[in-house]
C-alpha cells in the first residue's frame, strides 16, 4: 500500500468525500490559504470551487452555527477550526445546539455535522495556542469524539465522521501531520468506537490517545528491552470509547497506563482510569497510572515547553511503577500527597479585605 502523510491522508479523505457526496462541503478559517491548514486542505478550493470550500471571516460562533443549520437542512458540512483554542467561541452551536437537537426533538431530526478541531501546539506558541480540549466534548451527551493517531485512521475516521448521523468532533494534532504510513486508496470507514491494538502484550496495557498512542508504542519498545511485554491500544475514538477492548486487555495484564495529551483533572484519562478501576477491579494488580499534561497552561520558552510535554519515557516509567507495585507491594509505592488547598494570599489592597474573623465551622 502506498504511504501518505497524516496531512495528506486528511486531504485525500476530504477530496474523496467531496467527490462522492454532493452534500459535503467545508467551511472555516484558512481554507483558501496555501499554509493555514498545514497541507491538510491544500488546493481543495481550486478543485471543488470556493462555493463548497468556504474560507470564512473570523466568526467562529456564527460559522459553526451555519454548519449546524446546513446539517439540519440536509447537508454534510465539515466545519474547520484551525485551532481548538479559537473554537471556545463556538461552544454554543456545538454544545447547546448540535449536541442537543436529536434528543430535544425525540429523534425527529439529526445533525450530521463534522466539527474538525486542530490542536496546534509547541513551537513556543503558548497558553492560547496549544489547548487540547477533547475532554470538554467527551463530557457532552450527544457528541461523538475521535482523535486519529495514524494516517490510515485520519482518513478512515474522517469518512466515518461524515457518514455518521450525529455531530462528531474530529480532533487532529499538527504534531502528527508529517508522520507517514500506509493508506488505502479508496475511501473507507474506520468505525467510530473501536480501539486498535498496536502491539499485543501480556504484562501491562498502555492506552494511548492521539500522539500519545505513538509515544506508548515507543515506550513499549523501551520496555521490551527490559523484558516487559506491553500491550498498546490506540484508543482512536473517545466517545464512544472502546470499553470492551480496554477492559479485556486490562483484565489480561492486570496493569494499565492511560496516556492522554490533555490536562489531568477531569480529562479523558480520568474517565478511562475510573472505568477501569471500577470494572476491572478484581483484575487490577496495581493502581491505574495516568500520564497527561500537568494541570498548567502551555508555557512558551523551550526549557519549560520541554518539561511540559510528556515523552515516551514518562509512559515507560509509569508502566514500571505499576509493575513494581505488583512485586514489591503497596508500601514501596510513594503515595501521592496533595499540597492541599492553597492558602489564601495577600490581596492587592489588604485593608479592603472582607472580615475574616469568623471562620465558619465545617461540621
Amino acid at each position: 500500500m502506498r504511504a501518505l502523510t497524516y496531512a495528506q491522508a486528511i486531504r485525500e479523505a476530504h477530496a474523496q468525500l467531496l467527490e462522492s457526496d454532493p452534500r459535503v462541503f467545508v467551511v472555516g478559517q484558512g481554507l483558501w490559504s496555501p499554509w493555514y491548514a498545514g497541507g491538510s486542505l491544500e488546493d481543495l478550493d481550486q478543485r471543488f470551487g470556493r462555493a463548497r470550500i468556504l474560507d470564512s471571516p473570523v466568526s467562529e460562533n456564527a460559522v459553526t452555527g451555519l454548519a449546524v443549520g446546513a446539517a439540519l437542512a440536509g447537508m454534510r458540512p465539515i466545519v474547520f477550526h484551525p485551532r481548538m483554542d479559537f473554537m471556545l467561541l463556538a461552544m454554543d452551536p456545538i454544545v447547546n445546539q448540535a449536541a442537543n437537537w436529536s434528543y430535544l426533538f425525540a429523534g425527529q431530526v439529526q445533525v450530521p455535522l463534522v466539527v474538525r478541531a486542530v490542536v496546534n501546539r509547541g513551537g513556543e506558541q503558548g497558553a492560547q495556542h496549544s489547548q487540547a480540549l477533547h475532554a470538554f466534548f467527551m463530557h457532552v451527551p450527544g457528541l461523538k469524539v475521535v482523535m486519529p493517531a495514524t494516517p490510515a485512521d485520519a482518513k478512515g475516521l474522517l469518512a466515518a465522521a461524515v457518514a455518521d448521523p450525529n455531530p462528531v468532533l474530529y480532533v487532529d494534532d499538527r504534531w502528527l501531520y508529517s508522520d507517514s504510513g500506509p493508506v488505502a486508496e479508496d475511501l473507507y470507514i474506520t468505525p467510530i468506537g473501536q480501539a486498535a491494538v498496536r502491539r499485543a502484550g501480556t504484562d501491562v496495557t498502555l492506552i494511548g490517545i492521539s500522539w500519545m498512542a505513538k509515544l506508548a508504542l515507543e515506550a513499549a519498545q523501551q520496555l521490551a528491552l527490559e523484558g516487559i511485554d506491553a500491550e498498546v491500544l490506540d484508543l482512536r475514538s473517545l466517545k464512544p470509547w472502546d470499553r470492551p477492548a480496554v477492559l479485556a486487555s486490562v483484565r489480561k495484564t492486570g496493569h494499565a497506563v492511560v496516556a492522554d495529551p490533555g490536562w489531568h483533572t477531569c480529562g479523558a484519562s480520568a474517565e478511562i482510569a475510573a472505568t477501569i478501576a471500577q470494572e476491572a477491579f478484581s483484575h487490577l494488580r496495581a493502581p491505574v497510572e495516568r500520564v497527561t499534561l500537568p494541570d498548567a497552561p502551555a508555557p512558551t520558552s523551550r526549557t519549560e515547553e520541554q518539561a511540559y510535554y510528556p515523552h515516551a519515557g514518562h509512559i515507560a516509567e509509569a508502566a514500571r511503577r505499576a509493575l513494581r507495585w505488583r512485586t514489591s507491594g503497596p508500601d514501596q509505592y510513594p503515595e501521592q500527597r496533595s499540597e492541599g488547598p492553597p492558602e489564601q494570599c495577600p490581596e492587592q489592597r489588604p485593608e479592603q479585605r472582607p472580615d475574616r474573623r469568623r471562620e465558619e465551622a465545617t461540621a
Partner: protein
Amino acid sequence: MATFIGCVMLSNLSIAVETEIRPARPAVQTSGIAVRRAELRVLWRTMLRIRRAEECIAELAEAGQARCPCHLYIGQEAVAAGVCAALRDQDSVWGGHRSHGHYLARGGSLEGLFAEVLGKATGCSGGRGGSMHLLAREVGILGTVPIVAGTVPLAAGAALAYQLRGEPRVACAFFGDGTLEEGHMHETMNLAALYRLPLLLVCENNLYSSHLHWSERRVLDNLHRAGEFHGVPGVRVDGNDVEAVLAAARAAAHRAREGGGPTLIECRTFRFRGHVGPSTDLDVGVKRRDALDAWLEHDPLLRCEECLRALGFEDLDGDTASVEQETGAALAAAEAAPFPEAARVLKHVWSSNPDGPYSPDGARREALCAR
C-alpha cells in the same frame, strides 16, 4: 450560486414605515398597501387562532397543568401571521423561546402544540421540548429553541444549504430586540451579506428583553439599521399592522429568492403579557404600565377585525366559533394523551441509536426501566 463578493444596494427596499414607540390610535387603513380582501381575512383567522391558543396556554400555565416555561405571544400575532403569509411551503422558519405564534402561523397542529406544552408524548417535539422547543417539519418549522440568538446562525446555514443546492427556498429567522445584543447576530449578518444568503431576519421589537426596556440596554432606537454596517438592508414596519408586515416580508422574500441576499425587518410591537407566564409584568422596566395601556388600544387582532368589518365582512363570528371549537378539541385531545414512558429518557441522545448511549450506571438504568 451567486457571486460571493459584491456590494449590496442599501436602498432596495423602500417601504420603511417609521413608527413611534407609543402607537398612534389605531387607524382602519393601516399601511396603505393593497392586500387582497380574502387574504386579509385569512391573516385575521391566523391571528385569532394564535390568540386563542395562547389564552388557553396561559390558563394551563396558571392552573399548573403546563409546567414548562411559556413565553406568550399575545399582542405580537400580526408579525407571525404577516411574515408566514409571505413564505412558501418549502421555506423554513426558525424561532426562539417565544415561538408558539410562528409555529401556528405556519399551520402547525394545535394539538401538537398543546400536547408539547403539557409534556405529552404526542407533542410536536415528542414531549421532549415543551413550549420552548418546537418542531414541525411538515410545515417548515425547522426548530425553535430558547438560547437567545441560537437559531439565527442555523437559519443562515439552512439558507446556505438551499443556495448550494440551487433550490429557490428561503430561510426565515424570528427573534426579539434583545437578541441583537448577542455578538453572533452581527457575525451572522456579515456572513449572510457576504454569501448573499436567501435569509429573512425578522426582529420582533417588543421594546423589552425580559424585564429591561430597550433604553436600559442601548442608546439608540434603530434596530432596523443593525445590518447596515455589513450590507444587510433593513426596514422598520408597524408590527401590529399585519398588512404592513406582509408587504415588507414579501419584498424581502422576493429579494432573497432572486439572489439579492438577506433583509432585516424590524417589526415594532408589544407583548401584552409578561416575559414568561401569564402575568403582565407591570413591576419591571421603565414605562411598562403606560406603554401597555397605549399598546392595548393598538391590538393587532382588533385592528384587523375593524378593518375587515369596514371592508364589509359581516360573518366573522362564524370563524370565531370554529376557531374556538378547533382549539377546544385540540386541547381535549392533548389532555387525554399519555406522557412519555420514563424509560425513554436515554433514547435519542444519538440519532439512530435507539437505546441511547451506553449507560454509565448500569444499575440505575435497570432501575429506571423497572419503574
